[in-house]
């Protein structure tokens, strides 16, 4: 046994430690590691996320479309169907037109004034 204060390795202690820590089956272990090296590396978290990108985008698009349709249909349901005739009549212009349907110049001026006035 060498001096405990020296700086060189203690060969006897080292041999005891190696013997104590030595594990059997070197060849088996090396073969096992070599097999593991040959296997493809496990997916990282980025690989997992990347695999989810396409299905995720498709699901998001489908969801957005469904929500848009739902909102659109809901908004449409709040408005009562209005016929073109009702919409036109609500402006009051047709009455003026009808009133001016006689064809004289004064009527035409009144019709135009009515239209411009409505705007």
């Amino acid at each position, binding site marked *: 046994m060498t001096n*405990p204060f020296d700086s060189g390795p203690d060969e006897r*202690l080292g041999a005891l430690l*190696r013997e*104590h*820590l030595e*594990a059997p089956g070197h060849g088996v272990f090396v073969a096992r*590691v*070599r097999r*593991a*090296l040959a296997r493809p590396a496990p997916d990282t978290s980025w690989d997992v996320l990347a695999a989810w990108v396409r299905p995720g985008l498709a699901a998001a698009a489908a969801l957005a479309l469904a929500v848009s349709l739902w909102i659109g249909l809901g908004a449409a349901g709040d408005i009562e169907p209005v016929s073109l005739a009702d919409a036109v009549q609500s402006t009051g212009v047709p009455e003026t037109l009808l009133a001016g349907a006689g064809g004289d110049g004064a009527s035409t001026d009144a019709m135009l004034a009515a239209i411009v006035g409505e705007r």
Partner: protein
Amino acid sequence: MRNSPVTDAELSARAAAGDGDAFGELVDRHAPQARRAARVVLDNDQDADDAAQDGFLAAWRAIDRFDRSRPFRPWLMRIVVNAARDLRRRQAVRRTDDLSPALAAGGPSPERETERALLRERLAGALAALPERQRLAVTMFDAEGFAHSEIAEVLGIPEGTVRSDVFHARRALRATLAPYLEETR
């Protein structure tokens, strides 16, 4: 390390280029030390081998980042020790008190084997009583032949702390093993 015409730096360069066989050669070369280092942390053969394998696989994935101007062994050992520490944190370590492997047929006499079994038991107890860092420091220095500076790199501590750890660990181990060491002097 065994004598080999191919250096670790050459093998690591080939491995970084994707040569799995070159890395396999590094595994073959450094597996004994890696397994011992893992066992210092885990004190269980199966867990130690799992950790050593994890370490080698992590080193394989990171081999292109290894600075080949520096020695390979401390870099690898640092990865293995970290893998062993990670494993210890992740699981409850299965401690074993089976310290007596099968006797080799035609080996030492029963008295001699009993003596060695007693020594192993004493050594196991003394190692277990040491802080992990001291166990690693003394094992890497005395059993594996690492320099203080290399151990400092592996453990991420100052070189002076390594010297102190080696000194205290040796003192404790020598005190425990003194009877045996005196007999075999």
